[in-house]
């Protein structure tokens, strides 16, 4: 009887025991740093001063951020939202077009797939550097073509076009993952439903709009939310491409956090900005989980 109780206990506990090392590691690498971050955000800690000299100021940093006393905070949030929306929409549209093309029988499909996923293989910071060279006013290859066909060069990383150039880089980086997710979604659609739609009187475009897209909706939503997370917390490519400039033209929230902490030395304030970033990312992640659960 006692042996049976012990066996039953181990049987019930076994899944938790096996999963616990991973959960513990995840906890130590994510939850604990976030809690420490929150702790720092409640202080007036600055670089150059001893950690012991920090003062606990409660939610003062958050008050300064949300009341606009840190003048770059709300513009960085607005810019983050703008960049995220444009990036997600364009990535979705181009990714869908690529996925539809790859879903057909095309020659050299494996070669094109390899080319498609190349941006994923490039480190984000390196991608920024790479595009910085391409956008270079004096010797960038883009200006070589622009000058040849239009007779003048463009300052791609100047005040006027820096944001546009940043969006180009982000979209270029995120198209592969979007295309692959959407391609997986397309391949899961029963092709007979499309044939049935054609027999029911649909043209190719109508069949795509009325039959394929609705079936693809869950994948589109999940992919968009995932892309939104990637776009919102992008740092590497912007740091190497524009460093948030010129001025604050490309200073999205992660860049604001970096500048506040490492340029201005205000670590407490930067930590508060980082907590806001974590909260927004967490909300987007919860939305993905909710979408997935709703589908199930």
């Amino acid at each position, binding site marked *: 009887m006692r042996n049976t109780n012990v066996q039953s206990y181990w049987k019930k506990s076994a899944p938790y025991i096996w999963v616990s090392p991973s959960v513990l590691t995840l906890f130590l690498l994510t939850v604990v740093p976030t809690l420490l971050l929150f702790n720092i955000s409640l202080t007036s800690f600055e670089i150059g001063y001893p950690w012991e000299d920090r003062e606990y100021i409660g939610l003062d940093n958050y008050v300064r951020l949300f009341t606009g006393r840190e003048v770059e905070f709300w513009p960085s949030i607005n810019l983050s939202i703008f960049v995220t929306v444009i990036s997600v929409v364009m990535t979705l549209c181009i990714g869908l077009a690529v996925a539809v093309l790859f879903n057909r029988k095309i020659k050299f499909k494996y070669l094109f797939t390899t080319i498609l996923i190349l941006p994923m293989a490039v480190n984000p910071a390196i991608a920024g550097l790479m595009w910085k060279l391409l956008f270079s006013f004096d010797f960038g290859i883009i200006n070589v073509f622009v000058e040849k066909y239009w007779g003048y060069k463009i300052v791609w990383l100047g005040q006027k076009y820096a944001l546009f150039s940043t969006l180009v880089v982000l979209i270029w980086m995120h198209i592969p993952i979007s295309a692959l997710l959407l391609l997986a979604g397309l391949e899961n659609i029963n092709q007979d*439903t499309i044939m049935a739609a054609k027999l029911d009187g649909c043209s190719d475009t109508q069949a795509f709009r009325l039959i394929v897209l609705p079936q693809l909706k869950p994948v589109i939503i999940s992919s968009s939310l995932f892309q939104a997370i990637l776009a919102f917390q992008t740092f590497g490519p912007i740091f190497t491409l524009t460093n948030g400039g010129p001025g604050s033209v490309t200073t999205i929230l992660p860049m604001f956090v970096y500048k506040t902490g490492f340029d201005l030395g205000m670590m407490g304030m930067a930590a508060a900005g980082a907590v806001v970033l974590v909260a927004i990312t967490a909300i987007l992640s919860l939305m993905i989980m909710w979408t997935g659960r709703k589908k199930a």
Partner: protein
Amino acid sequence: MAGVRIRGLHKTYNRTDAVCGIDIDIADGEFVVLVGPSGCGKSTTLRMIAGLEEITKGEIFIDDRLVNHVQPKDRDIAMVFQHYALYPHLTARENMSFGLRMRGYAKDEIKTRVTEAAGFLNIAELLDRRPGQLSGGERQRVAMGRAIVREPSVCLFDEPLSNLDAKLRVKMRTEIKRLHHKVKTTSIYVTHDQVEAMTLAERIVIMNAGRIEQVGTPDEIYLHPKTKFVAGFIGSPAMNFLHCRLAKEGSGLTISLIGGGPLLPVPTALTGRYSPYLGKDLVLGIRPEHIKECPEHGGAQAGFVEIDIKIDVVEPLGMDTLLYFSIGDTEVCARVSPDVARGPGEIMLLMAEMNKMHLIDPDTGTVL
């Protein structure tokens, strides 16, 4: 409604011929079944009629109109698919009305047609459910409803019952037959199940390796198969095939089985037909249902030949019992009444109905 004519139809995939030049005439309102083993080209043929596959060579006419280059939506064809192909994001009602909405029918007309079809198919209470909330049989009825509401010229069925369990399949077969009696739409039905073919078809087209083996009514196919393939494909259990040779016996002919077994006299009426094949190696075909129990030695009816057998395997089916035994190296099956069947290892007297036998040329596969 419209007739369908197919002339010299070919389909080639990467130098592989899936359909090799077939000709079929389907009359207006006729129910024709394309039957054959997997990979014989029947579904490919159906899809070419629907316009869902490109034609490599040949012509398809629907109601005397050449439709080779006509879009599927303009052929006035409806199709019931093997896996239903219902739109998962739409309710049953929306699935059934989709085709009518695409063609710009008035709302009242759509409502009337959907309600009438749903009533006929007993799915009225299911109209507000999505396909994911329906059983297999219910989904198939919704798929049939989607096809009939359009009142198409031609209705195509691509193995619609394959995914259903045996009991439901029998029920749905009756539904399809009842539906055809009501609407009388020209119907082309594809299946690999010869029982479905025999029960549903007004005419059967038997296909094999991209070619037509035979076209005929179920009775013609069953009683007068033209090739060994057709003889063996139609009928369950399959026809028995025994290698044999024709020999002269007095003024008549006798069949001697290669590998041993009794001598089987050829019925007098068939002597003239088979005389030219004297001494030739042939294949004797006889259906299990044409080998039955014999009451006693000398008790065989006219046209029957007695054979003593030793039973190897017994398969009771309820209504009948199948007995498996050997003649030489060949396993033979007989269908007998369960009242008289004996057990494995026992000796039993059977009689074969020689008027119903077929002789087949093994070189050409044709039934003589």
